[in-house]
């Protein structure tokens, strides 16, 4: 991927973040993110893969402003946005970048009709009046494959896949250039997952969207990503095009991840690191 002829819409360099947990004697600091750098050309998808505790979600949260970085820089759409996570900064940033979360259940307020998730965003970001917001909401629903009838439904009345479509419509409402998808298809059944992946792909092509796709599933990464970044314990161990990383992995950890992924003909193996003779 040459960088000269494509605009880098996201450019992150030397990001660090530590967390402290506990108090007193049990106080510990954890290096959640360590010297992470990457960039994403406009209209492409970067998949960040890793296991729990790899720091992939923290990177996503820092990008959208839910978490602030200890040091490092984040350039979004040509603007430096790294410092802080105040409300004003988030508001500014939310026009460039939006997020879709993993849990379809928690993504929506169960006491409000699902359309309010979208109209709330429109109210925050546009000057549209109530009727125009409704109009826009229905057109966003149509874009993500929902029917107008769904607008009046409560979250309990929709399936997991439909709820995730609403969450995608909400992310699109602010017309961002970048969408962060944090394990957005992980909680879905495989047939529904395939539909949502197809939807995301269509939207990306239609709207020239840029995705940062956080996933633990390498097969999903293979389907959606142009580039792949593998994280382990807060650090990037390998990054490159999807084909480079997933077809001919260089780092042993990437190889281990690939070996562990169930696929036709796969034989589950115990790791040597467990070091046990039975």
């Amino acid at each position, binding site marked *: 991927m040459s960088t000269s002829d494509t605009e880098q819409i996201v450019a992150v360099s030397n990001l660090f973040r530590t967390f402290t947990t506990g108090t007193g004697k049990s106080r510990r600091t954890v290096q959640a993110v360590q010297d992470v750098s990457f960039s994403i050309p406009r209209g492409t998808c970067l998949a960040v893969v890793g296991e729990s505790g790899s720091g992939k979600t923290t990177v996503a949260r820092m990008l*959208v*402003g*839910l978490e602030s970085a200890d040091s490092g820089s984040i350039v979004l759409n040509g603007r430096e946005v790294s410092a802080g996570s105040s*409300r*004003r*900064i*988030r*508001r*500014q*940033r*939310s026009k460039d970048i*939006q*997020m879709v*979360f*993993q*849990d379809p259940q*928690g*993504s*929506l*307020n*169960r*006491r*409000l009709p699902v359309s309010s*998730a979208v109209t*709330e*965003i429109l109210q*925050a*970001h546009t000057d549209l009046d109530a009727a125009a917001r409704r109009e826009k909401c229905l057109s966003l629903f149509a874009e993500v494959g929902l*029917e107008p*009838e*769904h607008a009046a*439904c*409560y979250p*309990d*009345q*929709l399936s997991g896949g439909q709820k995730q479509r609403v*969450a995608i419509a*909400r992310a699109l409402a*602010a017309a961002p250039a970048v969408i962060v998808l944090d394990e957005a298809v992980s909680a879905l059944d495989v047939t529904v997952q395939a539909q949502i992946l197809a939807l995301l792909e269509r939207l990306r092509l239609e709207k020239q969207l840029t995705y940062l796709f956080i996933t633990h599933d390498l097969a999903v990464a293979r389907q959606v990503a142009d580039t792949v970044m593998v994280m382990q314990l807060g650090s990037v161990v390998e990054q490159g095009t999807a084909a480079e990383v997933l077809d001919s992995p260089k780092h042993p950890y990437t190889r281990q991840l690939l070996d562990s992924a169930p696929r036709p003909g796969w034989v589950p193996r115990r790791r040597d690191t467990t070091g046990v003779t039975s």
Partner: protein
Amino acid sequence: MSAPALNRRNARRRRSGGAFSGPLARICLGWLALVALLAVLGPMITPFDATEGNIVDRYLPASAEHWLGTDQAGRDLFTRLAVGARSTILAALAVAGLTVLIGGTLALVAVWFGGRVDGAITRFLDFLFSFPNLLLAVLAVAVFGAGVETAVVALAIGFSPYTARVIRSVALRERNLAYVKSAELQGISGLVITFRHLLPNVKQQILTGASINFGYAMIDLAALSFLGFGVQPPDADWGLMVSSGQASLLAGYPQESIFAGTCIVLTVAALGYLGEQLGGRRAAGRA
């Protein structure tokens, strides 16, 4: 789209239907309605004055004129119960309302800001917890003087940690859900998110808590009046009536204490039962 339509109907039924069904619940509701009616209309339907009596008419038994008889000062007991209902219920309502306001605000502020703010508020609540409510109220009375206003404020402060703790735990769970994070990401202000998203989701806990607090408040207010720290004679108040009925009790006329005491017990029990139903329905709705 018949499935969502059907679901919606079920959801509506769940929301409205069977709120307080069952004979006991209906009796409780009926009693509370009666008390409320007395509190509102009481003074209008009896010709007597609640505070002025004729000493000649003391200790009259129940009759067509004096429905429940009279007390040692010759005042009509029914009138005093009706007027007393008003002050007793208003004071208890004030305690319940103020408790929700103080406890709820503390809880939501703690949840929204989290971290150090949460820690400080939680510690402050623990500190309040360590005081018995009545002691707190008696202390307040000692400092600010006897009177129903002091008693109400002191009890509300004493009750607020219980309410705050419940609301905090529910709101905290909600705070961490993705939809709240998502709204936060848009730069929507914490106040708006709290009112639009957090508050409606803790409404049920607030209502249940308030109805139970209301009952406790009645008992504690009655106790304070009984001790002479709350409502002052000759005003009518149920707790005060139990206390002023003591002398009559010894003289062989127990009506005043018994009637007032029964009113307190029945009202508290009815509220407690209904509050429990409310909480139970909530739990069933979650499952």
